């Protein structure tokens, strides 16, 4: 069994695979990397760098997109 670590995604605690990259995280969530913007511990991670950043225990990740608004 894979080791997991606890992180927070969009305010919800989640257990994810240890050493997972942000790109793998998006794939697990079935999210298209072109359709979301990723903020990792308050820093925006650009799309090309998503495969280079690995999550660590306690990380806070925000996944945002555009919704209807005025």
């Amino acid at each position, binding site marked *: 069994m894979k080791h997991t670590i606890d992180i927070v995604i*969009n305010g919800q605690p989640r257990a994810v695979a240890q050493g997972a990259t942000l790109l793998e995280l998006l794939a697990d969530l079935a999210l298209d990397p072109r359709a979301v913007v990723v903020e990792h511990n308050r820093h925006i991670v650009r799309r090309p760098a998503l495969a280079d950043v690995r999550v660590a225990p306690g990380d806070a990740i925000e996944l945002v*997109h*555009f919704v209807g608004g005025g």
Partner: protein
Amino acid sequence: MTTAVDLVQDTPFSVGGRTFQSRLMVGTGKYPDNDTMVRAIEASGAEIVTVAVRRVDLDRSKHSSVLHHLDPKRFFLLANTAGCYTATDAVRYARLAREAGFNDFVKLEVIGDEETLLPDVQGLLEAAKVLVKEGFKVLAYTNEDLVTALRLEDAGCAAVMPLASPIGSGLGLLNPFSVRTIKRRLRVPVVVDAGVGTASDACVTMEQGVDGILMNTAIAAARDPVAMGRAMRLAVEAGRAAFLAGRMPRREVALPSSPTEGMLD
């Protein structure tokens, strides 16, 4: 298509180095469904549409993004910082929006009061300065205060957006004098944002000479949003045309329109 505005030789609306044919900008929130939203926006003729930055819903469909319904090649997406109560939050949302990759325009909102959603002008100026320095084209939602508008212009905002009345209130243009004064004194475009309730409000607002209007609820919350989208397009064109035509002076006494000579004995 020939419109009234074409006949009075208007110039196109330019903001932040971009040029648009329509002076009406519309929001994408609060529609009963996405199909109605798209048809209402089409009927309004708007080219600039606003969107908000929010968390992806991890438990539901991945199709909740508004971009599934609006083609970014067809519409100019203007991200807002709605819901932000501090300069820091507004800057954070603006950066996320820019990263989404469409343009470096942002409709900057820093709200200061929950009940009225009136802007926190101190936070607004602070955020505007940071974002302008980072290369954003800032369209700043503000109240109808001339001094704040001047400071936003000095801060490098691409446009200043005074309110007609509070967001979502539909009360119409409460202070035409202030909006006119702001328009007269600023060099950057003045776009009235928020408070328009129906077509006559939009028309009166455009008659003040402002460069454009941004609205959302007036169309989205109409009984028939598509019909109201069309009404707003016509009202904005009519108001703009009337402004360019130059209205007659107001007078306190009547002046007959028919000749006073040639009356029968």
